[in-house]
């Protein structure tokens, strides 16, 4: 079996080309069936916004470029012209493909290092192949290994941790001050782009209350309606005049206005702090430009004021952390690759090992049956067990060596072993009338 991959990804393929070769579910199933049916090979298509990758198996006797059928189909279906200088796609076979898929699943090949969506997309690819009926034993094992490695990388390293967008970084800061936001009230002031993104991020989260304030109330109502329709919880829309009272109620205030001058000045913030009293902290996330909160507000006790520069610093720190985690993730990928290749090698020698064991077992049984008339049941059982153990011990070393030793996996060597048994069987058949 020759495992190969043709990949059109963001590293080497333009977005126009990626658009053209992207697969929807039905298209992928149809493509896989047409690619794999003629040779009864196995195949899976991974199609995301950043990559379209065709993983398939070719037979050992196939031409030197096993990916040729896949490229021809891509050309016929999508008008894709492969170019090698500079390359507009990546293709390889064997261990490099296994490693590539495991790196993809771990998020090491993603545009945003360590992103987590890819793991779901890898699962989807497997389900498409199942529907197409092109996922055989080898491909399934490879895909399961890729999903397993992807999960381990996320569980055992920090590769996927930390926000990499401004909206996500804003909530990372909020969670660093307050922990889970379930018991905290959030106020969004303004309907700017980052405010909208922040609302979008809050869709899956539970909060004690979400309030939206905007100078143009209609726009706020529209955003609140979109939030509710998108599956978010209730949003209270308040008039701009209630800004001060709303800040007093809130724990996290996110400003995303285009006011041009601070809407929360120092005096107002001092009043708000005095009104809130006690030990309640207030986090002001000023995502507006020009800034919407007087910078001196950050000097007030119990008030944390963060702006776009802070969010950029959080993102930089998270990026650095992800980069630091790459060696750990690579080590997990390497272990997964080795484990899969070991399994695959074992699979290629399995028929030979099975043949060897069958042959020994057959001889053992024949000899045992010859002795049966002269033995009582107990002696026969003991002899049966002893010969079974003898055969197991004799065959243990050759079986293990065959599975383990790469130099014995040469198809010619395995073929010679197979022929050796065939000739032996043929000779026995000639001599022994029982085998005729």
């Amino acid at each position, binding site marked *: 079996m020759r495992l190969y991959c043709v990949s059109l990804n963001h590293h080497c393929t333009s977005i126009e080309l990626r658009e053209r070769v992207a697969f929807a579910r039905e298209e992928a199933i149809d493509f896989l069936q047409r690619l794999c049916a003629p040779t009864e090979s196995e195949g899976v298509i991974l199609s995301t916004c950043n990559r379209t990758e065709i993983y398939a198996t070719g037979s050992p006797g196939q031409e030197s470029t096993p990916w040729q059928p896949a490229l021809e189909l891509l050309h016929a279906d999508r008008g894709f012209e492969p170019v090698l200088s500079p390359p507009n796609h990546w293709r390889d076979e064997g261990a490099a493909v296994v490693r590539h898929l495991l790196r993809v699943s771990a998020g090491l090949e993603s545009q945003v290092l360590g992103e987590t969506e890819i793991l779901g997309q890898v699962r989807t690819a497997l389900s498409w192949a199942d529907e197409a009926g092109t996922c055989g034993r080898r491909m399934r094992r490879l895909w399961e290994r890729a999903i397993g490695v992807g999960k381990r990388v996320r*569980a055992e390293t*920090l590769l996927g941790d930390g926000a990499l967008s401004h909206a996500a970084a804003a909530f990372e*800061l909020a969670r*660093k*001050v307050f*922990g889970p936001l379930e018991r905290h009230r959030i106020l969004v002031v303004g309907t700017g782009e980052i405010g909208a993104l922040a609302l979008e991020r809050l869709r899956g989260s539970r909060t004690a209350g979400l309030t939206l304030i905007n100078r143009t109330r209609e726009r706020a109502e529209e955003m609140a309606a979109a939030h509710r329709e998108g599956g978010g919880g209730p949003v209270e829309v308040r008039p701009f005049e209630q800004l001060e009272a709303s800040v007093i109620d809130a724990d996290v205030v996110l400003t995303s206005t285009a006011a041009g001058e601070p809407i929360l000045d120092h005096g107002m913030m001092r009043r708000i702090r005095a009104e809130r009293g*006690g*030990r309640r*902290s207030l986090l002001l996330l000023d995502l507006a430009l020009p800034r919407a909160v007087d910078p001196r507000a950050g000097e007030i006790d119990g008030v*944390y004021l963060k702006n776009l520069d802070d969010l950029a610093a959080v993102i930089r720190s998270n990026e650095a952390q992800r980069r630091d985690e790459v060696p750990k993730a690579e080590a997990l990928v390497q272990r997964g690759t080795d484990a899969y290749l070991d399994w695959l090698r074992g699979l290629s020698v399995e028929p030979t090992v099975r043949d060897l064991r069958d042959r020994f077992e057959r001889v053992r049984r024949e000899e045992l049956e010859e002795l049966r008339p002269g033995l009582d049941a107990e002696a026969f059982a003991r002899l049966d067990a002893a010969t079974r153990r003898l055969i197991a011990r004799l065959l243990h070393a050759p079986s293990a060596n065959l599975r383990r030793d790469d130099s014995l996996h040469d198809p010619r060597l395995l073929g010679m072993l197979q022929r050796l048994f065939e000739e032996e069987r043929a000779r026995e058949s000639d001599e022994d009338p029982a085998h005729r």
Partner: protein
Amino acid sequence: MSPLLFDAAILVLTVLYALLTQHAARRYLSGSSGLERLSRSPLLLTVLLHLSALILRGVETGTCPVLSRWEALSFVAFCMAAIELTLELRRGIRVTGVFVLAPAAVLQLLSAVFLIGRDPAPPSGAPDLAGSLHAFAALLGISGVVVAGIYGALYLGLHRKIRAGDYGGFFRRMPSLEELGELNATAAGLGFLSLCVTVGIGLYGWSTRASDPESISLLAFPVGVTLLLWALLGVCSVGHRIGRFGGARLAGTTIVALLAALLLLTLLGPKGVHGA
């Protein structure tokens, strides 16, 4: 308990505390959730083993097993680990454990250095239940103050990092400010309750033996520090309960209390804070 068994118990416990600290440090540095799930059992095992050793020694001496300053340090190490375990079970935050367990391991090591190879101190007199409870509560209270101070320091550390816009490793690894504040307040509350028991028993004992020339003086320096500690913790705990005291102020106060507790630990003797 034979001297050999006594030494072996101290040695095993010291090794366990060192391993526990190493485990907690790895968990802190890796920040990995996989390690986090496994973390509770070594701490629980160590606390249970230490408790068993203390019970054996307590049965042997007929009193709270702190017959020397070094035994008291080991007892404080146990109390700190037990408080950390309680906080972990209550709050589910384990990443900060190393900051409590490392000092506990140091105390246990100090204790081992001065206890191993010497005959364990013999019981000084008839069993005294009230005295034992007084000593137990006092040491638990001091441990609570130490743990509260450590969480106070972590709170202030994170608070300053956020204010300064330093979003490095410490920022990433720490739980939220609010959670650190809760750990800080819970440990302070535990310390306060224990010291309430200590002070209550102490005052009762003092009032019933006030005419005894051997009786302790309330004006003795260590006793004064203990009362000051108790008052400080009272302010923290009650203030936090009624919602008037928290955040950086609570953290700062518990750090002052921690310094007082460290001073007390240096003054501990066979009679606790009541003289050598």
